[in-house]
Every structure is written in structure tokens, then in C-alpha cells.
């Protein structure tokens, strides 16, 4: 399942799809950045409500397939620009983190 397909099948909104053909292999929920870097696996979809600029570096370095902002959280335009430059995918879900993860789980 690619990030493009996940976005469509789960009914999420695409915020940045800079590398939408990437495979999604799993899912991790977390808002503490070091915890995410310690526990998430490469190619996971990372569900978070954290929306500051540092999430882009964390997603890139931890090599997750995409960030999914849950609870309808939005990001500023400078973060969107940085995500495009760094080729980090960002999706958005209006659902809480748990329900967002359930939808991801139904697809992968």
C-alpha cells in the first residue's frame, strides 16, 4: 500500500504528497519526538498531534513513510514548504489518533 493509496482509501486529506509512491509498512502513534525516533520503524505511518517544524526533521531522519496529523491538527505554510523540500509526506485526519490508526490498520 502506497501513501497515495492510503490517503485515498482512508479518506485522509493530502497536505504534502512529495513522495506518494512510498510504501507504508506499519503504523506508530506518538507525540514525544525522541520516543518516536526510538520506537517507530522505517516505513511506518506516524500519527501525531505535534505540529511544529521539528516533526519534518524527525520524519525524514527516522525514515517514516508519512506523517498523519490527527484530530484535525493543521500546520503552518513554512512547515508545508519544508516538507516539500525534504520530500516528507503529510496527511491530515479529522479523527482522533486511535481511530486514525484503526483506519490505517484496515488498509495495510
Amino acid at each position, binding site marked *: 500500500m502506497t501513501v497515495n493509496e492510503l490517503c485515498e482509501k482512508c479518506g485522509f486529506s493530502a497536505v504534502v504528497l512529495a513522495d506518494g509512491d512510498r510504501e507504508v509498512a506499519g503504523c506508530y502513534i506518538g507525540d*514525544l*519526538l525522541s*520516543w518516536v525516533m*526510538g520506537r517507530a520503524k522505517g516505513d511506518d505511518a506516524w500519527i501525531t498531534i505535534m505540529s*511544529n517544524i*521539528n516533526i519534518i*526533521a*524527525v520524519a525524514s531522519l527516522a*525514515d517514516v513513510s508519512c506523517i498523519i496529523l490527527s484530530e484535525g491538527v493543521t500546520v503552518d505554510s513554512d512547515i508545508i514548504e519544508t516538507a516539500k523540500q*525534504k520530500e516528507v509526506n503529510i496527511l491530515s485526519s479529522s479523527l482522533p489518533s486511535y481511530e486514525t490508526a484503526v483506519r490505517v490498520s484496515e488498509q495495510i
Partner: protein
Amino acid sequence: MSESLIFHFDVDGEDFTSAGQASVQVKKNLRRLGISPEIIRQVSIAMYEGEINMVIHAGGGEADVVVSEDKIEIILADKGPGIADIDLAMQEGFSTATDSVRSLGFGAGMGLPNMKRYTDEMTIDSVVGEGTTIRMVVNL
């Protein structure tokens, strides 16, 4: 490769939002060298945690990454306050970060443990009032 490649970075201690630039550049460089994705991920996370620590605690510092035939070494040196109790600092969950740092999602007390988790060797030399040098090795 017969000779080592060295990448040097000055880590800016002023700007929290740009923290991670050195790590992102290292990731790019390692990808160009054809290093495997899992090794790149280990080096990237370990270096980013160290970079963030230098920004949070030490007002910046210097980072060197040495790529040789059989290993990648990461050396992070700062002139910050030093670490008084290294064993305590290595415990998951222990942190001296401020509330403002925590509100950004850092300061969970996982930085040093993550650096150890993702590297094959890690040594910390720290003198209170003088600074800290951390050397990490990821074997290829």
C-alpha cells in the same frame, strides 16, 4: 573506499527550529555513498539526538562524521555545562530540559538512550563547567 571521508558541521545553538540541518545533510551524503537505508537511519537518528542535545543544553557545538571502510564515526563536541551524572543521564525518562523545550516534543529523556540504542559503540567524556564530547560508532 580506501581513505576516510570527513564531514564537519558547526551546530548553531541559537535556532531551535533549524536544529537537525547537520543530520539531514549527513543523511544525504550517506545516501550518495550508497550506504544501506537501515545504517543511514541509525546514524541519522543518533546524530540528530546529539544535535538536539547540543542546541537544548550547550548553546551549540561541533559535529564531525567520519566514514571509513568498515565504520561510521560521529563525534559531537560542545563547550556546554557538562553532564554531572552520566549514569543518571543515560536512564530513559531522565531529563533536565525546560518546559518550553518539552512543549516542542523534546525533553522526554530519550536522547542519550536513543544514541546508544542506534550505535554499536558510544563513549561520553564530560567535565562539568567545560563541556561534553560524545563519540559514537556504527559498524558497516
